[in-house]
């Protein structure tokens, strides 16, 4: 050790101190190299080139309409003053810092520390922040607006159950037009049955003028009887071609509370409705009053039922893929085990080819395999199974082959010496050694496969992910929340179980 230190001190730089400064100012890092600090010099040179390159690229992006560097730079400063300014100053500081260090190295004043790299790292961090469009301000600003859907995802359980409903409905016909066209009949009132009457029972719908301002239609006075007392009653409208919708008044859906006798009165502005010209002629619309009451026991709602069904599908997708993966990877793993294949150059060639193919397959993510599998076998869980199987064969093939490479040859020799045949040797000397890694890797893979199959549906590979994207696209955040909860639950249970099983087997 001592002698090596002396040698290091005696090594002379190729250039003098001032020369190192000049060289370093022309090409940052070259001064270090000439001061026999090859690695550090190259690293600094590369960092400088990279930072400047990235910086110029960002300037160009920020000012892509400008021509000429100066005007681009000015424009970029205009748009992202802090970023451009900081990096500009930092590059200048770094430039001189490198030169100063090169001087100190050549004149043996100092060995130079790592703080220069800390500075380089800080610059990369700032550049990275800008490139990846990190926007913490936005994340905070938009939180209040994002909160309602988020809270529905976080606590979705109201959507998990539902009850059967009973509908109490009464309707009255309204003529769009004038009295002399012949008014629709008013049905007789039947005691005990819900009943609604409108006065008048004709009038004009709301309409839009040229400036798209609403011209209010006729106000009709509704009177209802025979409903459940003290209950919200929804007012619906059905147009002349039978389309039902719920009109809004002051932005709220129209509804009214019945009094203690089950009666109500309500003034409704006849809503806006565009009727296709083909349906021209006498237009009789309908106004409806509906009371929807929930009755009977709570039952699982559709989102819950679908989620459970698809979670089961997901777990089995993972299981089937693991199963096929294990079956296929066992023979493959022997081809990829060096100690099995090292007997001749032919087998060694097979070994290298197998290893290479396994490595390539493994480096492609299951999600990408799923995209390919969807093209191959169509949407659905089978595509997911194909994708996961392909990836599992590669991953397990590698793990198993390493386990095979690690087995102790002694017991094999001992068993051969007893006169056992080859199957017996395999069963008594090889299998017991293979069981622990085999079980552990297979369970681990099952864990991974279920985890992966929760997302593989995002690209159409079946399973719970498929349902989740659909709910999110429909903006049904509560249903999506149920799916998310079940995914989290399944994955963590599996994680625990798989860790427990693996712990038992080692």
């Amino acid at each position, binding site marked *: 050790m001592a002698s090596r230190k002396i040698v290091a001190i005696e090594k002379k730089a190729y250039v003098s101190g001032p020369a190192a400064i000049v060289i370093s100012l022309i090409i940052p890092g070259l001064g270090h190299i000439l001061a026999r600090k090859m690695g550090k010099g190259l690293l600094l040179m590369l960092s400088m080139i990279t930072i400047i390159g990235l910086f110029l690229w960002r300037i160009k992006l920020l000012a892509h309409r400008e021509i000429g560097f100066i005007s681009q730079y000015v424009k970029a400063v205009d748009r992202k003053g802090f970023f451009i300014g900081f990096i500009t100053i930092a590059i200048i500081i770094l430039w001189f810092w490198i030169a100063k260090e090169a001087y100190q190295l050549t004149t043996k004043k100092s060995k130079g520390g790592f703080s220069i790299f800390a500075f380089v790292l800080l610059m990369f961090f700032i550049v990275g922040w800008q490139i990846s469009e990190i926007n913490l301000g936005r994340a905070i600003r938009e939180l209040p607006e994002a909160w309602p859907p988020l809270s529905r995802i976080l606590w979705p359980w109201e959507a998990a159950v539902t009850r059967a409903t009973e509908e109490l409905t009464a309707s009255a016909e309204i003529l769009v037009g004038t009295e002399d066209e012949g008014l629709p009949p008013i049905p007789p009132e039947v005691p005990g049955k819900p009943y609604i009457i409108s006065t008048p029972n004709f009038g004009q719908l709301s309409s839009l003028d040229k400036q798209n301002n609403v011209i209010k239609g006729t106000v009709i006075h509704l009177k209802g009887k025979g409903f459940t007392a003290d209950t919200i009653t929804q007012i619906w409208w059905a147009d002349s071609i039978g389309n039902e919708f719920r009109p809004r008044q002051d932005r709220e859906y129209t509804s009214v509370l019945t009094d203690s006798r089950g009666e109500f009165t309500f003034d409704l502005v006849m809503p806006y409705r565009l009727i296709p010209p083909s349906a021209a002629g006498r237009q009789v619309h309908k106004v409806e009053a509906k009371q929807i009451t929930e009755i009977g026991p709570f039952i699982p709602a559709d989102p819950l039922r679908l989620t459970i069904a698809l979670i089961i599908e997901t777990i089995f997708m993972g299981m089937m893929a693991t199963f096929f993966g294990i079956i296929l990877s066992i023979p493959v793993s022997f081809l990829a085990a060096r100690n099995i294949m090292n007997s001749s150059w032919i087998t060694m060639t097979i070994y290298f080819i197998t290893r290479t193919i396994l490595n390539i397959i493994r480096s492609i993510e299951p999600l990408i395999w799923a995209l390919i599998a969807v093209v191959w076998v169509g949407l659905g869980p089978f595509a997911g199974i194909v994708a996961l199987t392909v990836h599992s064969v590669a991953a397990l093939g590698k793990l198993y082959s390493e386990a095979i490479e690690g087995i102790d040859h*002694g017991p094999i020799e*001992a068993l051969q*010496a007893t*006169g*056992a045949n080859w199957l*017996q040797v395999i*069963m*008594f000397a090889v299998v*017991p050694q293979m069981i622990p890694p085999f079980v552990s890797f297979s369970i681990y893979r099952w864990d991974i496969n279920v985890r992966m199959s929760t997302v593989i549906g995002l690209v159409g590979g079946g399973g719970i992910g498929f349902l989740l994207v659909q709910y999110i696209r429909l903006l049904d955040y509560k249903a999506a929340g149920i799916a998310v909860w079940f995914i989290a639950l399944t994955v963590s249970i599996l994680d625990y179980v798989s860790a427990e099983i693996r712990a038992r087997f080692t």
Partner: protein
Amino acid sequence: MLEVKNLTKIYNDGTVALDDVSFTVKDNEFLVIIGLSGSGKSTLLRCINRLIDPTEGRIIWEGKDVTKVQGTQLRNLRRQVGMIFQHFNLVKRSSVILNVLSGRLGYVNPWKSLLYRFSSEDRAEGAAALEMVGIEDQANKRADELSGGQQQRVGIARALMQNPKMILADEPVASLDPVLAHTILGYLEKLNKERDITIICSLHYLDLVQRYATRIIGLRDGKIVWQGNNKDIRKMTDSQFKDIYGEEAERVNAGSLVGEEAEKWHREKL
């Protein structure tokens, strides 16, 4: 009787591990092979039960040419020859009794054995073999829970399950301390004397050689450089000794101790 005639083994990489080796072993002998590490002891032992195929030469055992047999015949030959190893070569994760029973594999119904099933006679014999080496109480432990000495006893019990006419022991005590060495070799000697099992054993310590061998072969670089009986080895001259162990070798004190004395010496040293 075992006759080894002009045995030569050249490994694929060109190493000549055995070079024209010839000798005979009479039934009931305790033959010890000595020699430096790399002199070819393991290769020689493995040629006898054909774990290694010799390049040239013949090995005749009980009138049969061992080098010619194949398949079932080879397995039938191997099952009569027990083997004990320096590193015991037990299946570490299997139970002691399963390791012992695996010595029986050459005799049992192969299909039944694949399910790890053995007849009650075999199991009784396994228990008896463990009793013979004094570890019947360890039968259900995992093999790797046992100490080195105990593991080698399992190795002996496994060989016993073969009902062997001959036992090959490749440095059976090299990874054990000297007291245990005597215990293990004591078992081999007992088998040799009480059950008429021929023993061929490679050893490193000269004192052990003098204590147990009835006949000795010295190997050096794959050639036999010395042969003699138990008495001859005490009269071995320095130059003969150097033939086996090379010029730099020196005889240590213990080398001249015999039997009881040697045991005492080792006990004191511990």
